[in-house]
C-alpha cells in the first residue's frame, strides 16, 4: 500500500478504531517504511502535546466585565472569595510577615520582662488570675523602681563622701604646705610681714610662686563647693 493511503488512516490507527484487518495492514507498512513510522511517532507526540497543553485561567476581572456589559449587575462574591480578597491576599505578603514576627517577639519579651509567669493553663484563662498577676506585675515594677532609687541615693552618698574626703585631705595637705620652715627665710623677706595685714603674713610667706598660688585657689574653691 502506498504511503499517502496509510497516512490517511493514521488517526484511526492511533485511536484503534480501524477494523482489525486494516490495523494489520497499517502495522505491516509501518514495519517496512521508516518515513511513515517516524511520521506516526511525530503525530503521536503532537497528540500528547495537545493533551498536555495547559488550560489557561482568564483574568478574574473578565467575569466582572462580562456581567457589567450584559446584565449590568456586578458580580456577587462568595464569603470565600471575599475572605481571600480582603484578608488572605493582604496578609500573605513579606511585609506583613515581618511585621507579625516583630509583634510576636515584642509580646514575648514584654510578657517575660513585665509579667510573672502563669503556673497553669486554667490560670491563664481566668480573669481574676489575670488581674492578680497584673497587680503583682505592677508591684514588682514599683519595687524595682524603689530599689533603683535606693541604689542611686547610695551611690550619690558614696560619691559625695569620696569627694569631700579627697578635698579635705588636699586642704590639710595645703595647710601643711603653708607652715613656714624656720631658718630658710631670706633676710629681705623678714621685713615684709610688717607691711602686710595680720593673718595673711604667715601663709603668703610660703606661697610666693604663681603656680603655687593658682593651685591653692583651685583647691580652696573645691573645698568651698
Amino acid at each position, binding site marked *: 500500500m502506498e504511503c499517502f493511503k496509510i*497516512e*490517511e*488512516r*493514521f*488517526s*484511526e490507527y492511533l485511536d484503534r478504531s480501524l477494523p482489525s484487518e486494516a490495523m494489520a495492514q497499517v502495522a505491516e507498512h509501518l514495519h517496512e517504511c521508516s518515513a511513515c513510522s*517516524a*511520521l506516526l511517532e*511525530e*503525530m503521536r*507526540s*503532537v*497528540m500528547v*502535546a*495537545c*493533551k*498536555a*497543553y*495547559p*488550560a*489557561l*485561567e*482568564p*483574568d478574574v476581572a*473578565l*467575569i466582572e*466585565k*462580562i*456581567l457589567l*456589559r*450584559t*446584565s449590568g*449587575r456586578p*458580580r*456577587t462574591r462568595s464569603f470565600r472569595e471575599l475572605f481571600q480578597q480582603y484578608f488572605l491576599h493582604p496578609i500573605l505578603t513579606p511585609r506583613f510577615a515581618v511585621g507579625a514576627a516583630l509583634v510576636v517577639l515584642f509580646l514575648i519579651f514584654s510578657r517575660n520582662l513585665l509579667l510573672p509567669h502563669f503556673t497553669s493553663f486554667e490560670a491563664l484563662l481566668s480573669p481574676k488570675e489575670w488581674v492578680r498577676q497584673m497587680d503583682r506585675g505592677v508591684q514588682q515594677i514599683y519595687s524595682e523602681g524603689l530599689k533603683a532609687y535606693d541604689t542611686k541615693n547610695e551611690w550619690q552618698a558614696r560619691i559625695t563622701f569620696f569627694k569631700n574626703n579627697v578635698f579635705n585631705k588636699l586642704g590639710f595637705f595645703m595647710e601643711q604646705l603653708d607652715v613656714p620652715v624656720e631658718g630658710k627665710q631670706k633676710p629681705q623677706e623678714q621685713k615684709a610681714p610688717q607691711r602686710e595685714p595680720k593673718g595673711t603674713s604667715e601663709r603668703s610667706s610660703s606661697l610666693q610662686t604663681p603656680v603655687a598660688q593658682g593651685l591653692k585657689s583651685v583647691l580652696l574653691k573645691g573645698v568651698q563647693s
Partner: protein
Amino acid sequence: MLAGDEKLVERCLQGDDAAWESIVTSYTRRLYNLSYRYTNRRDEAEDLTQEIFIKIYQNLKSFRSEAGSFQSWILKVGRNLIIDHYRQSRRYQQVGGSEELETMNVKDDKALNPHRAVEQLDAARFLMEGLQAIAPELKEAVILRDLEGMAYLEMADLLGIPEGTVKSRINRGRLELSKLLTRRRAQMRVQI
C-alpha cells in the same frame, strides 16, 4: 450538558440575574480558552469572550433545548463569532502571543516544578506556532478534537459537516502539523 442549564436559562429569561451570573461563571473559562486557541492572543481572546457572552445574552430566547444541549449552543455561537472575527481582522494566521503564554495563569498541578513548567511552556509555544501555520479548517479540527477534547459527533454538529469529513480534517490537520513541526525541529537543529 451540565445539569440544570435549561433551568438556568429559564430563570435568566425570567430576569434572574443570579442565574445569568452562574452561566457566565461556568462557561467563561471554556470560551476564553477556545478563543485564545483560535486567536493566540490574550487581549483578543478576552474581547471575544465578552462579545460571545453579549451575543448569548441577547439571543438567549432563541435557544431551543430540543435542538441540542446548551453547551453545544454556546460553543456554536462562540465559534461563529470567532470565525466572523477572523474574517474581519484577517489576523488568523499571524504568529504571536506565545510570549503572552508565559505571563498567563496556567492552571496545571504538574507545572508546579519550575523546570517542568518551562518545558511545558516551550512545548505549548512550539505547538501553537505550528498550529497558526496550517490551514484554518484543519487548525480548527485539531483544536476542537485534541485541545478541546470534543467528540466527532459534537464536532460535526458544531461545524455543520458530516462526521467523515470531521475525521478526515482531523487526520489531515494532525499530519500537516506533524510534518511542519518535524521540519521546524530539523531547522532548529541545523541552526544550533
